[in-house]
């Protein structure tokens, strides 16, 4: 039996997977956007933290 058959028994459950999918999709798009938008220099500075001490 499919997942939906179990889930539909919970009141208003349809919002759960949708909301989580949306949340993570937005999050990953945001993270990717941030990662590629941040200047290389900043990334290099942060990446060098272990070598400072």
């Amino acid at each position, binding site marked *: *039996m*499919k*997942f939906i*058959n*179990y*889930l539909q*028994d*919970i009141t208003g459950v349809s919002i*759960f*997977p949708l909301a*989580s999918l949306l*949340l*993570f999709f937005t*999050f*990953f798009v*945001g*993270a*990717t*956007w*941030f*990662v*590629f*938008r*941040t200047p290389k220099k900043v*990334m*290099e500075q*942060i*990446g*060098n*933290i*272990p*070598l400072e*001490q």
Partner: protein
Amino acid sequence: MQLKDTSGNISVQSPSIPFQQIPALEQYYYDNKIVKAFAYATMLWALVGMLVGVLAAFQLAFPVLNFNYPYTTFGRIRPVHTNAVIFAFVGNGIFMGVYYSLQRLLKTRMFSDRLGWIHFWGWQGIIVTAAVTLLAGYTTGKEYAELEWPVDIAITLVWVIFGVNMFGTILKRRERHLYVAIWFYIGTWVTVAMLHIVNSFEMPVSFMKSYSWYAGVQDALVQWWYGHNAVAFFLTTPYLGLMYYFIPKAANRPVYSYRWSIIHFWALIFIYIWAGPHHLLYTALPDWAQSLGVAFSLMLILPSWGGMLNGLMTLRGAWDKVREEPVLKFFVVALTCYGMATFEGPMLSLKSVNAITHFTDWTVAHVHVGALGWNGFLTFGILYWLIPRIFQTPLYSKKMATNHFWIGTLGIVLYAVPMYWAGFSQALMWKEFTPEGTLKYQFLETVTSLVPMYALRGIGGLIYLVGAIMMVVNLVKTIKGGKLLANEAAQAPALPKAYVKTGKESWHSWIERRPVQMLVGSLIVVAIGGIIELVPTFLIKSNIPTIASVKPYTPLELEGRDLYIREGCYTCHSQMIRPFRDEVARYGEYSKAGEFVYDHPFQWGSKRTGPDLARIGGKYPDSWHYNHMLKPTLVSPGSIMPQYSWLLDNDLDTTLTAGKIRAMQTMGVPYEPGYHKIAVKELLTQAEKIKEGLAKEKIKTPARKEIIAMIAYLQRMGKDIKGEKAASTAANTP
């Protein structure tokens, strides 16, 4: 341009930053003493854990090494090995690396020396207690979570102390930005806390006896959600944090791509938490949960390989150093093994592949590529790098370390290849039919043919252990030649209270500076996965169709089941018949979710060194079981099962029987009200019957012996479904 004010602070003006104050340099000291303590513990428990592992390996090839003694039998030795390696060796390795790197990445001493030492001694105390109690037979019967409830509470307390010390350190840092390694530490801390607490819901019966709060399918799902993520968040994410610190340090160059590391972190912790059900494919777990596990397991390749490549590429342009530097050699093989294991994992979670590999030695090979290669070699590399630094002396012998590297690598190969071979041939033999349509091999034949492979695997493990001994000798000599720099001086300006933006910033930069929000973010990410996976199975009744003929265990069977758990039978026997032609032909009707509703804890197992026992009930007479426990080879010539002769001698302890029934009632097992008052009487009545039955077969034994309870339990397994069939046949007969 520089200006000094009266308090010594320096003001600077730069072209990009209009005007900003940089506080004066502060002097502080890194605590190397606690790092040393965790390093020593790592070395000690490495040897102990591996030695016990070698013993367990050879026990499968040479059963005489079980010594016919309860405390040295495989069923108890194996959990000691897994717990020692995971929580003692790798656990101390994590703390060693975290206490060293955290201070330096945050430019501050640990928050509290005292908390550090409570953490250290608390953890060692837990390890010793774990070893003693597991050998003594106190176990919850849930893999990698075998420790009884008082130890579980102790683990929680020590973990909280570690967390307080870690977050205290983060809060008093002198470096604004939290380097990616620290994200992995935070993610590890919060997720392990969540997994441990959820999986350890137990109903105590006495000081050292409890039952899992969950039953059957639900228990299995929670257990493998925990079990899989113990691999993910104890053996992987903290080690990735260590990788992001120690590989750049050892190679003296920054991580290849800091961009990748950000994506790596979020993707890994989000996806990992969903993958647990891939341990339960083709079982009685609902299909949707299995599919969810497979889908997320496949996705795991991306972040895992992203991380591995990021580590390996850090060494770009430094391969000449790898040729000469044993530390880097260890790191390269560790990353390669990580890559192999994280490619293999998703492949093993494909249902068609899993149908072949599950319950076989293939899984054992898979986890050991991870444990010996990834965890072992990364730890060795860190130890070789760290000990000379904190003892202010060069490594005693680089040549010896290089030899350790080659010996260790040979050990991994010699361990893994026979196990892959064994796993593959075992699966093929299980599934082979004759042209007439009967199973070609008896189960025992599939075991005896693997004995040479088990012996070879033991040799592989032994060689790996020899390498580890060489490392300890090398490091002890290094330590003797140096002097511990207990408090290492360092200088850095204090963190200005007011944060001054250095330009346009994104939301992610915001979270990178905020440890508490990072903790909450990580918790949300892992909790959503856990909730979506677990909640429907608990809320929706139709997930576990009930079977009318399935009844609670009798008091004697319940006592027998507890003996089954005490002796660690689940380490070699499954109780889960998958819906395959060969399994149905060999063991009987495939297992249904409704059969396990009274199983606190579930005992499906994860490995079939011996046959499945889900429908063992009624297959053999009581006398067969009696003789089998006395000496397995009496009834199964060539069997590698240990003897359990003490079950014949030990009196059955019934002092807890009533309490056990009451505990079961509390958890919803439908015994009649007040049944606990007559439980022992009922137990004795059933025991007398078994005793009389045995007497007819010329076996004389008192009724109040452990063997009688064990026989009662074994003869019960799988019988309820048979009862239902008989009832429905009778009802349909005109």
